[in-house]
């Protein structure tokens, strides 16, 4: 799902960078100093989750789990996922330098949007309803991410539109897996530690 340097046109890259700076700044604003250790540990957890390979047909996919990251971190998912992408690019060579902004937006914005849509649902008093919303959150965030990647490619030039369509349809199995896993994880969290979901929301006093 990473886009590499040199593939996208300058306007797309610059727009991505500007949006990423805005998102990271807003996410940090919503993150009090006291919660930085927790955000850091969770950011590390999602980094490790992205190393987990899940079998799918004859092959396997690695997890993204940005929907779940959104459900737990809220807006703080923006800086947390940015840090993960920065480390992945520098130490593993996935992604690139100038595209760091657009990659962050493509992964983190769906996380935040899925959080805004689904947080009420996963808090539902009915456990089954909550599980279903967890699945919706996981699938929705991946759908949005592939859509954003496809849009980034399509905006760059006509010649990328088939590639954009290819990216979108190739990720439908990933979407199903991520939705399924998110549903199970939300079910588990609801039973074991329900306060984790939306743990980074500001407490109204």
């Amino acid at each position, binding site marked *: 799902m990473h886009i590499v340097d040199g593939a996208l046109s300058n306007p797309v890259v610059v727009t991505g960078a500007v949006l990423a700076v805005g998102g990271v*700044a807003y996410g940090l604003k919503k993150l009090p100093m006291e919660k930085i250790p927790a955000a850091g540990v969770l950011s*590390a957890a999602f980094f490790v989750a992205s*190393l987990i390979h899940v079998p*799918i047909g004859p092959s396997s996919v690695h997890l993204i789990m940005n929907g779940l990251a959104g459900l737990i971190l809220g807006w703080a998912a923006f800086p947390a996922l940015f840090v993960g992408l920065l*480390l992945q690019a520098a130490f*593993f060579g996935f992604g*690139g330098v100038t595209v760091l902004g657009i990659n962050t937006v493509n992964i983190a914005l769906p996380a935040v949007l899925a959080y805004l849509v689904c947080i009420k649902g996963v808090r539902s008093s009915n456990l089954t309803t909550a599980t279903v919303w967890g699945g919706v959150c996981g699938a929705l965030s991946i759908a949005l991410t592939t859509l954003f990647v496809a849009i980034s490619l399509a905006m760059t030039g006509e010649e990328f539109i088939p590639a954009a369509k290819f990216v979108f349809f190739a990720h439908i199995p990933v979407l199903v897996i991520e939705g399924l*896993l998110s549903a199970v994880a939300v079910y588990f*969290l609801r039973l074991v530690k329900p306060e984790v979901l939306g743990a980074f929301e500001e407490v109204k006093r």
Partner: protein
Amino acid sequence: MVLALSGAAQTLDSTGRATTLGLLGRIDPRARLIATLLFACVVVASHWIPTLLIALAASCTAMVFAQLPIASTLKRMAAMDSFIIFILILLPFTMPGEAMFTVFGFPASWEGLWRAVEIGLKANAVVLMLMALVGTMEAVTLGHALHHLKVPERLVHLLLFTVRYIEVLYEEHVRLKQAMKARGFKARNSLHTYRSYGYLLGMMLVRAMERSERILDAMKCRGFTGRIPLLGRYEYTKRDTVFAALMGALLMILIGTEIYHAV
């Protein structure tokens, strides 16, 4: 099992001081960060294939000087290339232009081929330079360097915490997987597999959250008020001037050849 967050065999020594390897390891981390950023911008803005070949050659040189393990680095590059190969293969067929050959009635254009080569060269040159100049830093050094480049303190702290706990959580993940294996779990294409992975993920998150609570308590006990003093100081030395001059010359050559071609 340890997940190394660094390309080079470079770790903190027993006293916690970063040990460095290679000629590039002794260059100021700030200079390496800025150089990577400028290099990336210039390469992405270039279009002439020979310019990009010079850039890729420079990246390979940097890789050698940074003492990156060549085999595993190239393997990582190949992994990245396999991600983008589909898009690159599609390009000649989707870009209009002079036909090169046809496959099942679909013409492949020269323009599309050159575009694909251009993207491949750019992506590899930039990522290789990034791994050579930034990837060889101790991840903690990267945080300190970013701090000295005026990156917001909170973001730097978030990065430092993430770096600190990636290895810890990776080991936790390995332990959980081991426990699953001990109970006869085998990954298949089944609902049971996906449910088990979901629980694994949930358990990792629960443990991460509880760990972070213990960390915060321990830190508060030691007087944590929300700030970590970042004590690393960097001094510009003669070596950094030489490095800056070399990188400047490289960028000039890249920009020069690009302008020469355009005129």
